[in-house]
């Protein structure tokens, strides 16, 4: 008699813990063949606010980590995904990807993290500088993370896109509240498990699952979210930009209709890190 396998209950990774939605709602995830696979948490605006709170708690500590330390932690995350690459590939196949494409997406995701792991202690040297002001001051411009960044991930290449949006934000010490793809949430659920074993402090990356239409307005208007990134359609862009105006939030939104190619060379860049940085200029007097 064959053994009945133990199926996993998908939970979202928020504040370093695995939770169900506070609403107790779920939606069914089906595999590529249309068979029931698992129930996915259908997170709410309240879950989003809780995640922002978790991100706010984690933020100062993460931003104060040394750049070297952040780099090693991102590298460790890459190690975790690489080690469980087969499982992650299977999660992408579950969503309809061909095995070869799934494997390619996983390795590209790992490589993307390696790319940003290497940036943590270098972007400052590329983006900041000393300014030769015409007065006796040592004047320098350095970067700082903006704080909490909201990320809305697309359905296509759901893992690579999510990682490409999250990684540049946390490279500099931001924390992230991300909404995973609605149609392909399972890779994000798995990613949460890998984040949990990566030395990344709990609350630095929080990943929710659920429906965009239920959460867009809170992403737009939550004043503690200082920046928004993601891939969204025209209506969502407008709604996010309108809400962002209330707290002068920074938005860097890509268009769904442009079908961003996350494998492209330009999909990783120090300027993606720059998108969630503030510049601070200090005038320090020179004198005896």
């Amino acid at each position, binding site marked *: 008699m064959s053994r009945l396998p133990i199926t996993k209950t998908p939970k979202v990774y928020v504040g370093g813990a695995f939770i169900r939605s506070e609403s107790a709602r779920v939606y069914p995830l089906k595999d590529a063949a249309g068979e029931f696979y698992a129930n996915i948490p259908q997170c709410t605006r309240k879950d989003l606010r809780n995640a922002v709170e978790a991100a706010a708690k984690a933020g100062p500590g993460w931003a104060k980590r040394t750049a070297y330390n952040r780099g090693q932690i991102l590298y460790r995350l890459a190690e975790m995904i690489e080690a469980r690459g087969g499982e992650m590939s299977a999660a992408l196949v579950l969503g309809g990807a061909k095995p070869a494409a799934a494997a390619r997406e996983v390795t590209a995701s790992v490589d993307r993290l390696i790319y940003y792991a290497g940036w943590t202690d270098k972007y400052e040297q590329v983006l900041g500088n000393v300014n030769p002001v015409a007065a006796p001051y040592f004047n320098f411009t350095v970067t700082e993370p903006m704080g909490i960044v909201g990320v809305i991930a697309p359905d296509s290449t759901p893992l690579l896109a999510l990682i490409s949006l999250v990684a540049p934000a946390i490279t500099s010490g931001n924390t992230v509240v991300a909404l995973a793809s609605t149609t392909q949430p399972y890779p994000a659920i798995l990613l949460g498990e890998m984040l949990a074993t990566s030395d990344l402090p709990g609350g630095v990356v929080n990943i929710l699952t659920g429906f965009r239409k239920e959460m867009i307005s809170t992403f737009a208007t939550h004043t503690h979210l200082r920046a928004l990134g993601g891939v969204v359609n025209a209506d969502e862009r407008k709604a996010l930009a309108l809400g962002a105006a209330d707290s002068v939030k920074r938005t860097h939104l890509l268009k769904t209709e442009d079908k961003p190619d996350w494998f492209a060379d330009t999909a990783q860049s120090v300027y993606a890190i720059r998108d969630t940085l*503030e510049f601070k200029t200090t005038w320090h007097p020179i004198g005896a």
Partner: protein
Amino acid sequence: MPALTAAKKSPRPAARPGRSAPELIFGDLWEFDPAPETADPKLKPRYDLFINGQFVAPKGGKYFDSINPANEQKLAEIALATPADVDAAYAAAQRAYDGVWGKMPGRERAKYLFRIARLLQDRAREFAVAETLDGGKPIKESRDFDVPMAAAHFFYHAGWADKLDYVAPGRSVAPLGVVGQVIPWNFPLLMCAWKIAPALAMGNTVVLKPAETTSITALKLAEIFQDAGLPPGVVNFVTGAGGVGAAVMNHPTPAKIAFTGSTEVGKIIMRGLAGTDKKMTMELGGKAANIVFDDAPLDQAVEGIVNGIFFNQGHVCCAGSRLLVQESVAEKVLAKLKNRIRTLRVGDPMDKNTDIGAINSREQLDRITKLVAAGVKEGNEMFQAACKLPAKGFYFRPTIFSGVSMSSRVAREEIFGPVLSVLTFRTVDEAIEKANNTAYGLSAGVWTDKGSRILKMSTELKAGVVWANTYNKFDPTSPFGGYKESGFGREGGRQGLLDYCKLV
């Protein structure tokens, strides 16, 4: 050697216990002779729009008066642009971008900007007088700060035009196209330079709207553009009030919008542009903390506090309007500060001895008056210098509120006038907490003798510019701009330039 010991004197006689050290009495006790600046501002009686390299009458045929806020007399008539004029300005800018400026080699664009800087230096005194007449700021400020700094911005950015490969390491940059810009009335000429110089260096063309109360120096700058041979349409000026500004911001042509002004209007603009692909830079309001620690050189700090809040009548988005003083020296600093503001000369902006000139408009004077009344009603202790104010014109006494709590309106709202709110703190952490407890985040000041504390404060303060043992210093090489609701994007430096291009 007893003789030596006897000869040694303490540097200053100590005040007798229980009595304060003798003080000089200032106020109106000593009259200064008038020292008016008399250079000719060469004003025209009527200023038209500047579109496609020409001064053209507005299509609606309407003009409005620009008055001197120091005496409420009319200076000139300014064209009121209609939407059709804004269309024409954008059409000219687009033609100039497509036909000339966008394709011109950087080294040639650079030469135009260098020329503009030089021509502005040539006419510096004339521009300074015009700026002071139109805006009300003291002549010493327009002469020593606004005009030279405007020229410096053109000179700095000129040199970038052929070095754009160094702006974004690893990537190439390209101009955005036409940019629409709206600027405020507090630094009319300087804001023109901040906006136009980087845009042009990068190869963009411009449609700019000056503030309705201060359009004259922009239109005088247009004369310099003509003298410099700047190709027609590269910069276009449309004048008028908020309606014209909205037309400039919401026009379909510009690829980018750059705005300097209040947070309130910035949010309206952001909403208006929601759903479009336009890039934005927002330089908005502030409520900066100027933090004085007990080890600071207090006399120097008092000068910095005065400069921080009374520079340009306090019409400065980065004004040090919240003074945070460490409790142990609070009384001393406040006493010194009150003494110091008794000596400030408030009055005719054209007088070279004037420290505080005219409030820019009646509307702004009313706003300041209203907020100060609210501050009094809240129970804050108010001190005003007892200076005589001119009978005509818009003036406001330098004002200090002390014993202010964090929740007070005068500690939270941007007053944009010569009004300082004084709060106290005990520890470094409390200073940081109070300084950051605001929706704004444009600038901050730190006064301390300790270098490591300067860097600690600078690291912790959520503000785009931090001045240590100084305040209100600016430089074209030094990026300026805010955190949080003080806006986004930077102006000046390499960072500012990147906000006027796209990566290719």
